[in-house]
């Protein structure tokens, strides 16, 4: 049997360091926002590698300052400074010059983007409140609710922090789908936690162990396999989506993957130690 409670402070310290690193990147470098949040334009072209390279040179010469990104099927041009007029011109020039076809054309005005940010904050807060209320109600014990929400906030911070790091090194965008992944992560996070807490409460009611730490250790050891297996099936699906699923969902699947992993980790290593710290005082 693994003694989880003995090492609780190490686990919490590890989590804290990941979060601090992420927060540093958020504060120092921020996110790479998609045009849904900051407004701007995006044009995607279907082109051979040869023509993509030509297009890149052309763009550097004629339209410096626009982001150029190669993809497996062509390239993407993106910028916050692309408005309707300019985007139309760029698209026309490129398709005439290189005889290539544009496959995606997106423009988002600044007024749309600011309301999006506000709505997402509301949605996230609502999800936290709803889950907190449900867990506290279900277990009739506020400590479980607080511990579950701590793990949920931990997972959100890990995901958001890692996204800033991915954004800094690989220009991964924070887009609407990322927010969806964030909210889904929240529900995943609580998923495993509930299974563990359910077990702890059952042990408490049966009174099979005298000490709190023994009860918790027993519950964690018992539920470890099912938490792992549960997450593994999700990880399998997401890996398949990341490897085979094409570019349009790759970042989304990666964010869900990070969420699943941290959500699985946080249940025994964050939520449970916090519950222990809250409950042992009695």
């Amino acid at each position, binding site marked *: 049997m693994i003694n989880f409670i003995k090492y609780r402070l190490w686990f919490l310290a590890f989590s804290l360091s990941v979060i601090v690193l992420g927060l540093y990147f958020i504060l120092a470098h921020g996110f790479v926002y998609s045009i849904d949040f900051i407004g701007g334009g995006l044009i995607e072209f279907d082109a051979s590698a040869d023509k993509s390279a030509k297009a890149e040179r052309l763009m550097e010469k004629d339209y410096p300052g626009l982001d150029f990104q190669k993809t497996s099927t062509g390239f993407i041009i993106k910028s916050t400074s692309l408005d309707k007029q300019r985007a139309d011109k760029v698209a026309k020039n490129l398709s005439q010059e290189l005889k290539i076809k544009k496959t995606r054309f997106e423009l988002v005005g600044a007024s749309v983007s600011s309301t999006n940010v506000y709505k997402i904050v509301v949605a996230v807060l609502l999800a936290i409140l709803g889950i907190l209320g449900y867990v506290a109600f279900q277990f009739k014990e506020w400590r479980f609710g607080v511990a579950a929400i701590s793990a949920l906030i931990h997972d959100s911070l890990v995901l958001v922090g890692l996204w800033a790091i991915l954004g800094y090194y690989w220009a991964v965008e924070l887009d609407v789908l990322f927010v969806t992944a964030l909210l889904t992560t929240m529900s995943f996070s609580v998923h495993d936690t509930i299974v563990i807490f359910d077990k702890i409460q059952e042990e408490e009611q049966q009174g099979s162990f005298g000490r709190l730490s023994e009860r918790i250790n027993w519950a964690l050891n018992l539920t470890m396999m*099912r938490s792992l297996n549960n997450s593994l099936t*999700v990880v399998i699906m997401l890996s398949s989506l990341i490897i085979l699923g094409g570019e349009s969902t790759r970042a989304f699947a990666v964010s869900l993957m990070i969420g699943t992993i941290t959500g699985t980790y946080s249940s025994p290593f964050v939520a449970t130690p916090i519950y222990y710290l809250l409950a042992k005082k009695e």
Partner: protein
Amino acid sequence: MPPLVINLPFVNKPITIKPEKIEINVLGKKLGINNEYKLGLDLQGGSHLVFLVDTSGFKNQDIESAVEASRNIIEKRINFFGVAEPQVYLLKQNNNYRVSVDIPGNKNPQQAINQIGKTAQLDFREYKTKEVQQGTESAQMAYFEPTKLNGQFLKKAALVFDQQSGNPQVSLVFNKEGARLFGEITKKNIQKPLAIFLDEQLLTAPTVQQAITDGKAVISGDFTVEEAKVLINSLNAGALPAPIKLIEQKTVEATLGQANIRQSLLAGVFGLLCVIMFMLILYKKEGLVAFISLMVYTIISLALYKILGIVLTISGIAGFLLSIGMAVDANILIYERIKEEQLLLKDKQIAVRSGFFRALAAIKSANFNTLLVCLILFNPLNLSFLPEFGMVRGFALTLALGVLLGLFTGVFITKNILWRIYKIEK
């Protein structure tokens, strides 16, 4: 979606599965199952346009009706354009009104934008003739020359009936400037036809009887009440009550959409096989039960998408794939719990029974939270303070459906099979 062709080994004959269209009558409503999935813009290609309605020129109490009218006009104009199943929504955020337009499979978004954004499409034209020379012969050719008078000056068109004959007529009321122009034009064209064009198309060309200076006119013709109503609608639709501005445009070509479908499908099939392998290796005989419930899950999901007419998007498919990974959740929780019970209980029958029921509570609570998040993401009541992104909705819908269905197959079907295997009495 093309028919599914499967090449079975050993048979050497491809099997084609192509469901035909089925219609079921449910409580007087026709539920149609046909062999087409409804695909979102990102999969079938098309344009998503959002227009901001400028309501600054309106008094508070008039804003709602002006915005609603703008939405209807925009819808009419797209329908005029002849695309299949356009969708037009009104979005409201504080005092900010937007009209979102989804045009599937639209080849030329710019043309659609121009069409929607026109401020006045109605105009009046004078009848003119000119000499046309061809070789030695010359002929009189009639044509219509545009005047300055157009829909911009039209205050209102309405249905009226002729006092004597009772025939339906269309009355036009111009504003002050329009009345002046109309007076001038009619004065010049007495006993000549004056044509009314809508979108460059001739609607009607009544003959002017006398100069009209009060800015009111009646179009009398041989039309039925229905025809007159259509005409009035077109005339009133001619001018948008509030100016609109394009603030968002997203266009995806059909080719990109098809690549998306192919890749997602491949990822789905591969992932599904891996999950099945995983369950078989991990739980052997019980793994087979999970496999059966997972197949039932997949088949029912795919059927439900058709029956409920759920619009599939890239993110929706991602939600579906994710839900496959989660659908075996219940199986895993039940099996692990059964293992746990077996540590204490020697009898397999009793262990299966108590393990199953003890796992239920945790399964229920754990899934409730996912449903809660789906509810927030899907935002079914269109609450304006929550996100209303189509992408997010597609994901939330398929995930929620997956969780509910996963509970059914993972719990109900698994229970029935387990009960049979271990001969547990009901």
